[in-house]
């Protein structure tokens, strides 16, 4: 309908000669093209803009966001920046839902050409205005034609739109743009779908999952090296952690020797990434830390964060060097090859158990163990048991996620909701405890041989530890209630009916 710009994605080039001769009493006139510019296609690693039907282009120092037949522009650069850190403007506003931890990065590049056109009547009066934006790469081109209605000239606008719609031949959305200009651009998925058959031997399931996550981890290496945003390393670690949990949770699927060997291999891969991730987390929470303590204590905290920043730079240099090394590449390639085929692995006693039956057994057992521990927790239980519960819940959650394709999605959703709530609670409990320890050891490191630390620093850290301790206690106090919510008759019944079958 007129009133709004209409937008047409035309694969290839717009046939201008045909366009200019297609209307009775109206003549489209193309203006001269503006000079061709280089453009970069911006998105984050997992292409969330593309997934939401948007395209963000940076060209000539401006950002252009295309969505629903509309183009929003803002004069600023975006590459390498976080959406929320862009200067105030319409593009930033339109990107309000962009993931906060993800930076805008170049996912493709090419050339862009802009031309305006006017559709004139017999008095040379403009009845419709428009623009043709042509994007091309060495793989192909696409024309984005926008038509703008002018008040009182609805009929001409409709005529032009109908023509363009026919030319676009029903093509809508932004996918045609990607298909035409960036056909090779694959979409990164942090959690790819992995198909499992109910009767599939468990060793095949394990191998599929591990192979998939080795590949996901590898897709994050370049982003870590380029230091685009902290999510790359996070995803890398999550992927390897998934691999490790398959190895340790799918008991008896691989031989004991191989299990031990693989556990070691993946632990060794994880170890060098830990420090950078810890520092990333501190730095991401920097502002929260400052909010926890009064301004008089900020000086010491500032000094500490300066130190963290310095240390992170060094740690990242080391990690990047490792990621770029031939030895590392070879190690990963070898592992990927190993998991390319289940036949490469030494089977354990459970290797051939059918996936569904095996899943039920594992989940049911883990569920019972978790509940037993949780039900024993009282206000007097030592913190260690609460930590233990966190780990059990995590294992339960991993198992359920790995085998989810075998079960009813709606039932899983109902279970996961209170489980997640409990896990978030336990996670915070753990974070507050880990943070206290880290702060403590930071002061120790920055103390002299007599154990004396800089007063400013010690004041800030003392303040932080006190607040964190309060928070940890508060989280702990919530654990029992959160577990009871998870331990409802409804959820118990669901677990039983999903995973515990007579004769097991």
């Amino acid at each position, binding site marked *: 309908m007129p009133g709004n710009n209409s937008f047409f994605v035309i694969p290839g080039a717009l046939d201008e000669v045909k366009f200019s001769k297609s209307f009775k009493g109206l003549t489209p006139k193309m203006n001269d093209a503006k000079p061709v510019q280089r453009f970069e296609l911006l998105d984050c690693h997992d292409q969330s803009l593309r997934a939401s039907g948007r395209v963000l282009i940076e060209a000539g120092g401006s950002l252009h966001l295309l969505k629903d037949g509309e183009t929003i522009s803002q004069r600023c650069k975006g590459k390498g920046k976080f959406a929320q850190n862009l200067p105030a403007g319409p593009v930033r506003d339109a990107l309000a839902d962009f993931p906060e931890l993800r930076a805008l990065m170049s996912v493709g590049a090419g050339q862009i050409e802009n031309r305006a056109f006017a559709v004139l009547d017999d*008095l*040379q*009066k*403009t009845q419709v205005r428009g623009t043709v934006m042509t994007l091309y790469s060495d793989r192909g081109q696409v024309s984005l034609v926008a038509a703008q209605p*002018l*008040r*009182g*000239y609805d009929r001409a606008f409709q005529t032009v739109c109908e023509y363009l719609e026919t030319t676009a031949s029903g093509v809508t959305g932004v996918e045609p743009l990607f298909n035409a200009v960036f056909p090779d651009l694959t979409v990164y998925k942090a959690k790819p779908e992995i198909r499992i058959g109910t009767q599939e031997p468990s060793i095949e399931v394990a191998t599929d999952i591990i192979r998939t996550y080795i590949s996901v981890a590898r897709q994050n290496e370049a982003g870590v090296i380029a230091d685009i945003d902290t999510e790359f390393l996070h995803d890398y670690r999550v992927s390897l952690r998934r691999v490790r949990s398959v190895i340790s949770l799918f008991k008896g699927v691989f031989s004991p020797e191989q299990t031990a060997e693989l556990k070691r291999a993946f632990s060794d891969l994880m170890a060098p990434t830990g420090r950078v991730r810890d520092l990333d987390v501190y730095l991401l929470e920097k502002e929260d830390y400052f909010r926890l303590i009064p301004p008089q204590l900020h000086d010491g905290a500032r000094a500490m964060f300066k130190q963290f920043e310095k240390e992170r730079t060094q740690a990242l240099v080391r990690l990047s060097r490792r990621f770029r090394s031939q030895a590392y590449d070879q190690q990963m390639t070898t592992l990927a090859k190993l998991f390319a085929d289940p036949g490469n692995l030494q089977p354990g006693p459970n290797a051939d158990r059918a996936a569904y039956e095996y899943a039920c057994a594992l989940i049911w057992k883990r569920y019972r163990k978790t509940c037993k521990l949780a039900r024993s927790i009282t206000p007097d239980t030592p913190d260690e048991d609460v930590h233990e519960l966190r780990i059990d819940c995590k294992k339960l959650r991993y198992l359920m996620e790995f085998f989810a394709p075998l079960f009813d999605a709606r039932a899983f959703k109902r279970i996961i909701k209170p489980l997640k709530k409990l896990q978030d609670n336990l996670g915070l409990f753990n974070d507050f405890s880990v943070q206290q320890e880290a702060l403590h050891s930071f002061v120790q490191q920055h103390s002299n041989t007599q154990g004396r630390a800089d007063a400013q620093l010690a004041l800030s850290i003392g303040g932080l530890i006190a607040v964190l301790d309060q928070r940890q206690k508060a989280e702990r106090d919530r654990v029992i209630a959160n577990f009871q919510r998870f331990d409802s008759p409804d959820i118990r019944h669901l677990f039983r009916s999903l995973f515990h079958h007579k004769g097991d």
Partner: protein
Amino acid sequence: MKIIACYSNKGGVGKTATSVNLAYSYAKAGYTVLLCDLDPQGASGFYLRVKPSKKLTDARFFEDVARFTKSIRASDFEGLDVLPANMTFRDFDVFLSRMRNKRSRLKKALVAAGSDYDVIILDCPPNFSTLSENIFKAADQIVVPVIPTTLSERTFDQLVSFFDAKKLPKNKLKAFFSMVQRRKTLHQDTMDVMKKLYRKRFLNSAIPFAADIERMGQNRAPVSVYAPRSAASAAYQSLYDEIENGVVSNT
């Protein structure tokens, strides 16, 4: 929203030329402008290449807001829209004389259909009529082009007397000298006399007699579009500045 009428009870004095160029100046300054052509000849629309409206008849103009709104056309210039006239507008008077509240119908119609605009400029036909009384009532300012000749002096006297007789607010009247030829002593003398006589009614800005303005008919665009550096363009700009901002330039 404010309403500015370009009015004179004399024909051919530059009302339409002023309406179009003033409207363009307002739009250039960032205002949203509706140029409303009340003259059945449709000269304003002609200058902006907008064809006469077929469906907006005189009665509908006052009674059918939807039709009024639908008849508005975008000009080729950002912020400037046009309500084109048509031949039935010559019967406005007959129509209005039969109405109740016959002197406030125009204001009502403009408020109903044009309230989205910052400025509405009325290009008026030259006469005293029920329509012109509507115009006097609706307009916040009435811009009156006066050619500095004896005959024009008389028509301006008539206009002021009319305002006196009808007790209309004379401070709405903003007269200016139009088609001025400085080399003609008659023009100079008339201007001197009238400025003294109507000290408060005359703006300082004047529009010279200029070939660039005559050429509007061929170019069908505001003067500043095809002759941006001409004296005529500058004169219209200073007329705008004085009307809108009270800025008086010494020309």
